[in-house]
């Protein structure tokens, strides 16, 4: 049963862009939100450290991959100065090596960066942690916005995909999908190990967890590094999907994706394995379907939606299902999957 659900999920994911090719970019964006929500829930839901600044790794990864992808062929300073792809060319080989190296570098550097950052930030508790991480993300956006070498506020245009744009969208979708699935598998595996239990112990009572001999600072940083790894990769792919990156609206978009991921998790149900996935799918669908009907008021409506979800619907879809149909939820986490599929 469990495997059937997984196979169905993979099949649907693979089929979606083939059946609806016009929406490939939408599906990519959906995977981005799913990955961000899952990694956010790992600290927010399971470890109890509510970050508002995970988007920092998204933007950082995006810029790392941009720098790597451009530098493999040209000098980045000259490239941004001259206005990017209008002047400089990339061969096919340069593009693909750049893409692979850029994405890999983004993930690895983000994961490494999470350690020193975690040393500073994980001493903060509760709301201080949330505001501190938010500060890091905003500061990063502002700093990059004044840094001429990477294009400052003008941004960088990413190397274009050689060939048909539809193929490009499909390739990037597949990259997003694989990242998302690997991320899900890794997180599901982590939750089943002692590491997952340690995360929950930190959430429930950090002092006691430390008293029981857990190296809490290390666990928190490893957890953040895993999240940062996937978020960085996700940001690198997103930069290529968008094609043009810019510090405040695309890379370090604190008030857009940075808050959407938190809301998606709350909507789906905090601290559950499938909650973030379901929440991301529902939130994204809700947002995209209602988007065109608001005639300019969509951002206000989105804010209202955030407030309503946070204030009036805290338990989330998974929590609500759990309360309504406790018999569907055994002790075994896997028994939730049929509802998760129904919700998609």
């Amino acid at each position, binding site marked *: 049963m469990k495997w059937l659900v997984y196979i169905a999920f993979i099949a649907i994911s693979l089929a979606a862009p083939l059946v609806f090719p016009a929406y490939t970019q939408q599906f990519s964006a959906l995977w981005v939100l799913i990955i961000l929500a899952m990694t956010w829930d790992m600290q927010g839901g399971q470890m109890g450290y509510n970050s508002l600044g995970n988007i920092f790794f998204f933007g950082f990864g995006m810029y790392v991959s941009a720098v790597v992808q451009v530098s493999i062929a040209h000098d980045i300073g000259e490239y941004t100065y001259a206005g990017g792809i209008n002047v400089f060319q990339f061969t096919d080989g340069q593009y693909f090596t750049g893409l692979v190296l850029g994405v890999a570098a983004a993930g690895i550097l983000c994961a490494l960066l999470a350690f020193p950052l975690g040393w500073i930030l994980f001493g903060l508790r509760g709301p201080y942690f949330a*505001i501190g991480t938010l500060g890091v993300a905003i500061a990063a956006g502002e700093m990059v916005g004044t840094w001429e070498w990477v294009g400052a506020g003008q941004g960088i245009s990413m190397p274009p995909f050689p060939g048909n744009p539809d193929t490009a969208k499909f390739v990037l979708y597949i990259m997003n999908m694989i990242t998302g699935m690997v991320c899900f598998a890794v997180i599901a595996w982590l939750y089943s190990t002692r590491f997952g239990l340690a995360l929950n112990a930190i959430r429930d009572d950090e002092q006691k967890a430390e008293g029981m001999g857990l190296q809490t600072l290390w666990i928190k940083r490893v957890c953040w590094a895993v999240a940062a790894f996937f978020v960085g990769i996700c940001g690198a792919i997103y930069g290529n999907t968008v094609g043009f990156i810019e510090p405040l609206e695309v890379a370090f978009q604190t008030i857009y994706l940075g*808050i959407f991921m938190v809301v998606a998790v709350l909507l789906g149900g905090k601290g559950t394995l499938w909650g973030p996935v379901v929440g991301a799918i529902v939130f994204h669908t809700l947002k995209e379907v209602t988007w065109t009907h608001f005639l300019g008021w969509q951002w206000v409506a989105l804010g209202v939606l955030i407030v309503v979800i*946070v204030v009036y619907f805290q338990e989330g879809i998974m929590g609500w299902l759990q309360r309504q149909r406790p018999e569907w939820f055994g002790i075994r986490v896997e028994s939730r999957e049929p509802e998760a599929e129904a919700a998609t």
Partner: protein
Amino acid sequence: MWANIDLLIQVPKLAAGLFLEGLLIGAVFSLIAYGLALVWGVMNVKNLAQGPFVIAGGYICWYLSTLGLHPVLGMFAAAVVMWGLSWICFKLVVSKVLELDMFVSLLATFGLAYVLEQSLSLAFTQDTQTINLGWGSLDVFGDGLVLLAWQKVMAFAICCVLAVVLVLFMKRSRMGQAIRATAQNARAARVMGIDTDKVYSFTFCLNGAICGAAGALVAMIWVIQPFYGITYSIRAFVLVVAAGLGNLPGVILAGLGMGGLEQFGGFIIGAEYQQALVVGMLLAVLVVRLLQQSRKRQAVA
């Protein structure tokens, strides 16, 4: 950058001017931070909508001044309107999250901030606005080197008056005493017959009114724009964390210091780094707090 520092050393009058300007602006920061500390101390809600409240107050005053109302009267109007708006926010949102996890209140006020910012940008576009009273400037040293706009001097004076009124209100009035009692121990206050729900709603509305007045001052001494709010939230947060809750003189001093620091920082490294500077201060304050706490933890162990 070094040239600018050199210039400040060569011409101390310039440095003095920057310092004075910083003091005048810092007074407004202190006012905003005092409102945040009030809400934080009384009901344990970290109001991320503080900055957007300020900006909304500024827009109300600016809009009324385009209709012909004098900005100083507009300030009172802004305070009254923001009182009402905060009351609505409190009833619909904040009162529901009082009992809950702190992060929920943080997110809920973030959502409020989002709604306010977006509504403002729809209503008034994203252009920056300012109120000009046309009062000219005060020549501090009589040689035309350091000019202080009279508007800023007036804003500083209004801030001082408001601060005195607030302190007297907190010390003397029945409601002020109830607010302080609730901040000390809500449960005991309830036992003593204080209607804490009313205190909460009053406190939040009072904060809204303070923000409205401060916003009108910001519109007079600086510029407003729908999305400038988050910077004010962060500034207020930095001040409260640096000074500590319930430490009014500390908040005022820190606010004045922050105004000065921002003026000097903006002059030395360039105005485009201003927001980065504010956030940098936030991180610095948080790290210092962290180091202090870790020392305390070791002492306990």
